């Protein structure tokens, strides 16, 4: 029973979630991780810091985001779907919650600069945004392939005053951007904070990012309570590294709700991976027979990650949450369905969660159930790509 008590709580000094997590970094980075752990612990226990965090998310970030009942979708599939509207948060996704927290912490630690990795550019844009607001210098590492695929986001970051460094090593995508940001961090830890974009990396990142994102779940629980819905039967979120899922799960960890994380089928670290060590953490990872990390493959750049946050690996191993995979095709269909039925164009990442709900309604999800969907982001960034794909078929 001790395990259930500890679900989504403080992972302690060694940053362990069951057998996952920990801190696997070069010795040079240990002091910075320890400093961050102490600083976050201290800040998170400080009501003044918390109030500032909430204040910034209110007056700058657009929180609280509403919960919307998806009436037409619900009618069509026979389950009641409520969407937590992170697509309405500033910069168009939940990423803003984390970066507001981390940039406030950067300032509190007396550091003047942030670096970040980004895949599609969502976390990079969010980091550049939060850094601009506080006058922090910002450098974003982005796989060279991604800078080409998402050139508009590169321009956005530059408009916001950030420097974007194309990463040419390895597969030139998100995984390599994380490697490069870590290599860079070694050279500048004194004045620079590494603003990691998901619930991954060495302790305290997985815990800290989950705490900053937990505002999603706490708000949603209150909102569902206030409108008389109570505890939903299911809470469903897409999973790349797992930050939007961790954030919404955190509001329901101790409830009876079934927690479901939806991975891209081509990047399903839980279903297709094995325990391993990458990017500072022990978690579930896609890897080859000889322990080399493999590329994830997905239509959505934000889920193109071969690993998953260690707390998710733990939640899966104890059966508190379930992780499922959805392929590209149903995701495209779900994106179009939600657009037409509800007037909501979801991000391709979020469309994974929608796709699982529509697929499983009447199967894994009994008819008449109540489902809370985390609509982690809006689809503006993806419309050009989706247009290309759909046009190619005409």
């Amino acid at each position, binding site marked *: 029973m001790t395990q259930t008590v500890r679900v989504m709580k403080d992972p302690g000094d060694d940053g362990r979630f069951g057998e996952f997590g920990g801190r*696997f970094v070069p*010795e040079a980075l240990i*002091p910075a991780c320890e400093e961050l752990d102490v600083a976050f612990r201290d800040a998170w226990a400080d009501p003044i810091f918390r109030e500032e965090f909430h204040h910034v998310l209110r007056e700058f970030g657009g929180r609280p985001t509403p919960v919307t009942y998806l009436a037409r979708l619900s009618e069509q599939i026979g389950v009641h779907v409520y969407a937590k509207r992170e697509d309405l948060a500033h910069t168009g996704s939940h990423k803003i919650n984390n970066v507001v927290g981390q940039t406030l912490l950067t300032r509190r630690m007396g550091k003047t600069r942030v670096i970040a990795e980004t895949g599609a550019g969502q976390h990079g844009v969010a980091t550049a945004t939060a850094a601009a607001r506080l006058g922090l210098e910002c450098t974003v590492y982005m796989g060279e392939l991604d800078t080409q695929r998402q050139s508009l986001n590169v321009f956005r970051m530059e408009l916001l005053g950030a420097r974007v460094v194309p990463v040419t090593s390895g597969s030139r995508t998100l995984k390599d951007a994380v490697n490069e940001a870590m290599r860079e961090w070694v050279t500048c830890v004194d004045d620079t904070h590494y603003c990691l974009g998901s619930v991954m990396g060495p302790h305290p990142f997985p815990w800290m990012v989950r705490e900053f994102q937990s505002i999603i779940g706490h708000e949603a629980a209150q909102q569902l309570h206030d409108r008389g819905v109570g505890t939903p039967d299911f809470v469903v979120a897409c999973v790349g590294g797992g930050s939007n899922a961790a954030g919404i799960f955190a509001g329901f960890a101790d409830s009876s709700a079934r927690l479901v994380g939806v991975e891209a089928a081509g990047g399903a670290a839980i279903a297709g991976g094995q325990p391993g060590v990458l*990017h500072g953490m022990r978690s579930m990872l896609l890897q080859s*027979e000889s322990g080399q*990390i493999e590329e994830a493959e997905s239509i959505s750049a934000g889920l193109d990650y071969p690993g998953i946050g260690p707390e998710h690996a733990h939640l899966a191993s104890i059966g508190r949450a379930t992780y499922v995979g959805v392929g590209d095709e149903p995701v495209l269909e779900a994106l179009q369905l939600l657009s037409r039925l509800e007037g909501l164009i979801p991000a391709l990442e979020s469309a994974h969660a929608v796709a699982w709900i529509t697929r499983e309604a009447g199967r894994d999800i009994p008819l008449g159930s109540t489902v809370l969907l985390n609509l982690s982001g809006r689809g503006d960034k993806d419309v050009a790509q989706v247009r290309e794909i759909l046009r190619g078929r005409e």
Partner: protein
Amino acid sequence: MNSLETSLRTRRDRGDKSFVPYLMAGMVPDWLDHIDALVAAGATAVEVGIPFSDPILDGVVIQRASLASLSAGNTPEGILAELGRRSVGVPLVVMTYFNIIHHLGLERSAHLLCAGGVSGVILPDLTLEEAGPWRNVAHGSGLDTVLLVAPSSPEPRIEKIAAHAEGFVYAASRMAVTGRADDDGHAAAVVERVRRYSDLPVFVGIGVSTPQQAREAYEFADGAIVGSALVERVLGGMTPTQTEQFARDFVL
């Protein structure tokens, strides 16, 4: 005390300086001939890289070498088997990332490393706090797990690392990943701090690229580790004979 540490201590106690070159296994087809050349030139020990897809403590040169080795289809088992078939004549220290060991399994890794004639291991992403289970298995098999100290390591931490160090202490000269550098960074200060807590041989690594830099390191340290400067030349087509000539200048 395991064999690596015994031989390095003996050498240090005689006042001899250690030159420890690094090569990535499998980065060129004749990599083992380069190792023989390094030994012929007078290397004290050879550090052998086992490639990993995501080397976060390596700069562009060793990244390229990893990629070359992986593209050639090399696996940890294959590399260790090849090493085991050569008798190199000096201690071999494997440098790789922890996932390689984790994936093979701790016991099996230790077994394969020993069968490959390896006597020490450097795992730059396996910190002291996480190293316990591996260290137990390794030590029981006669393998030393070498620990790093960085310029950023505070003294209480150096003391803790020193208490667990085996083989030698790897003093990172700078806050950087592997690669060439023009100066000797903070090497002297790091070595001095390590010496306050440890009587193990202390070798300087990261950024030592020229014979001149190695000689400077020999002034205050017991040895120098030279990686990228050598790897870059081997990738560029240097022959084993040229490798031997190149390496000679680093030997005191």
